[in-house]
């Protein structure tokens, strides 16, 4: 004989938390209608997509990452945003992994306003289709304390200087730490053979004990430079700009071996369904106001030429930005796709772990 009352009691108690399940599932419906964007930390600020928020009051769900290595891994593991933000050197990897879909440039109002050089970077156009909308570009170099570092250093070798043992920081990314080590090891960073990779590993191993911070967390690096815990750090120019604003005596180095220029942009992920919202967002991001906001906030170059030119060149010089992408290409080392990236990633991880 079944005890109906007992079973009924049990079922009603079980039913209670099941009420929260609609939040899990129905939240899906809400989230599905909301655009999902996966971008670098710092780019989620509402001012960069104000136009989108005005047209779509429910806003966009923005998740942030510290480096596009991490972003690639997360998307591969099944995370499905609509839009993401890798850099030029990673674009072939994302495309070959089948993660992204082509962009219909006729739907991007400001497409012709973007720097032609950036639009034509290797990898952006492939199989006759456009795969990335360039958005930001700037430099990587060394920000150092002029009052704590002796002389006028002009070489990346400052980051290998034993005089500053445990007072150095580098960016934990293959396009930064590894690339610079490759330059210092005398190999072509973008065409490394396995023997080259060993040489670069040796270079990194020499540097490892001297490094206090190995991170993509630039705020910590800023704080360490401000307090004097770190005297020289591999950084993007935004760090230099921020510290100068705070009145800290810093300089952004012009290395003999050339500083790096990176360029990144927005891509549409393959599963993105609501393309109207996607293009609204892309248009909001490529607007002139956003371009100026990017430069004023972080000192990074905008791919939007009209916006870039609208900022006075004196201000741009203060941000340590090159005059334009053509000058950047000529005077600096543009970060391009690297061959043998899987072997590099594995070797990089091994060296960092102490092997």
């Amino acid at each position, binding site marked *: *004989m*079944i*005890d109906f009352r*007992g*079973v009924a*009691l*049990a079922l009603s108690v*079980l039913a*209670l*938390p*099941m009420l*929260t*399940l609609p*939040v*899990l*599932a129905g*939240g*899906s419906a809400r*989230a599905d209608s909301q655009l*999902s964007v996966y971008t670098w*930390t*710092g780019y989620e600020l509402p001012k960069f997509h104000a136009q989108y928020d005005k047209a779509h009051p429910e806003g966009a*769900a923005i*998740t*942030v990452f*510290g480096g596009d290595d991490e972003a690639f891994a997360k998307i591969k*593991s*099944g*995370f*499905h*945003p609509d839009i993401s933000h890798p850099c030029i050197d990673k674009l072939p990897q994302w495309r070959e992994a089948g993660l992204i879909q082509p962009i219909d440039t006729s739907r991007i109002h400001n497409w012709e306003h973007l720097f032609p050089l950036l639009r034509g970077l290797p990898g952006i156009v492939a199989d006759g289709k456009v795969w990335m909308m360039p958005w930001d570009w700037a430099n990587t170099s060394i920000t150092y304390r002029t009052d704590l570092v002796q002389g006028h250093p002009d070489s990346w070798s400052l980051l290998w200087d034993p005089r500053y043992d445990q007072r150095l920081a580098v960016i934990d990314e293959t396009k930064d730490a590894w690339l610079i080590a490759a330059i210092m090891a005398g190999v072509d960073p973008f065409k490394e053979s396995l023997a080259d990779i060993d040489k670069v590993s040796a270079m990194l191993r020499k540097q490892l004990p001297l490094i206090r911070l190995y991170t*993509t*967390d630039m*705020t*910590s690096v800023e*704080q360490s430079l*401000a*307090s004097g815990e770190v005297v020289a750090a591999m950084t993007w120019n935004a760090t230099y700009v921020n510290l100068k604003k705070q009145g800290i005596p810093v300089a952004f180095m012009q290395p003999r071996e050339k500083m790096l220029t990176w360029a990144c942009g927005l891509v549409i992920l393959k599963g993105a369904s609501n393309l109207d919202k996607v293009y609204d967002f892309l248009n909001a991001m490529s607007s002139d106001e956003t371009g100026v906001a990017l430069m004023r906030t972080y000192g990074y170059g905008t791919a939007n030429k009209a916006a870039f030119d609208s900022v006075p060149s004196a201000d741009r010089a203060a941000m340590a930005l090159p005059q334009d992408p053509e000058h950047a290409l000529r005077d600096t080392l543009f970060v391009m796709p690297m061959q043998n990236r899987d072997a590099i990633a594995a070797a990089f991880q091994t060296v960092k772990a102490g092997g």
Partner: protein
Amino acid sequence: MRAGRNFLGGYAVLYLAFLYLPVLMLPLFSFNDSPYAAFPIHHLTWRWYAQLWDDAAAKYALLHSLAVAAPAALISTVAGTLAAYALVRKRGLAAGPVAFLSVAPLLIPGVILGIALLIGARVIGLAPSLPVVLAGHVVLCMPLSLIIMRGHFRAISLSVEEAALDLGASPLGMFLRIVLPLSLPSLLSCLILSFTSSMDEFVVSFFLVGTRQTLPLFIWDHLRFPLLLPRMMALGSLLLLGSTVLAVVGDRLTLRRAPHD
């Protein structure tokens, strides 16, 4: 003896100070008028609390965590209780192996469970998402319930149950109307423990989370990119305050139920 007791008492107080000192850093820096959690502290401010209040992502993260913790607590308590009962009353051959499997997550580092569940989810075709996080939390919380209820069932005597069965009650009826009511305090402990474990679970959730973050994942992002750090200090302080209130309330309730030790 007296000296030993005083010495130990003094030690216990120092130990509490050791436990609380780092935790009290959170309220301290939540009022610090500087984006960096570092000394010296110059000015005090409420603005981090204001920022937290306006932060929609924080509220969503809290909501997501609650939406996972409540069902996780219930499912793991139910499953753990039933399995513990089967184990202690030696019901069937499966009871022992099932109990061993259920407790196994306690013996495996979280990072391994995390990757295992991620692979398992992907094999079934599920992307990282809140339901997958829920499944993970159930797997993690079930051992706790099983162990607590096992201890409880061992302590209560068989005779009441035998009597009920002899008088014609169905096994299910006997379980629901006699065993469970006797077990309410332990069941409550299981629910509370599972709930709080789930709310603070990070190591496994890291691999299973998708677009919608739980609170610990939200905190992790804000620790890694400390532009938004100060409001995490505010959040931590609020969590501390909330837990204190809960603990006091819980204490009052249990004192009323069991006045003698």
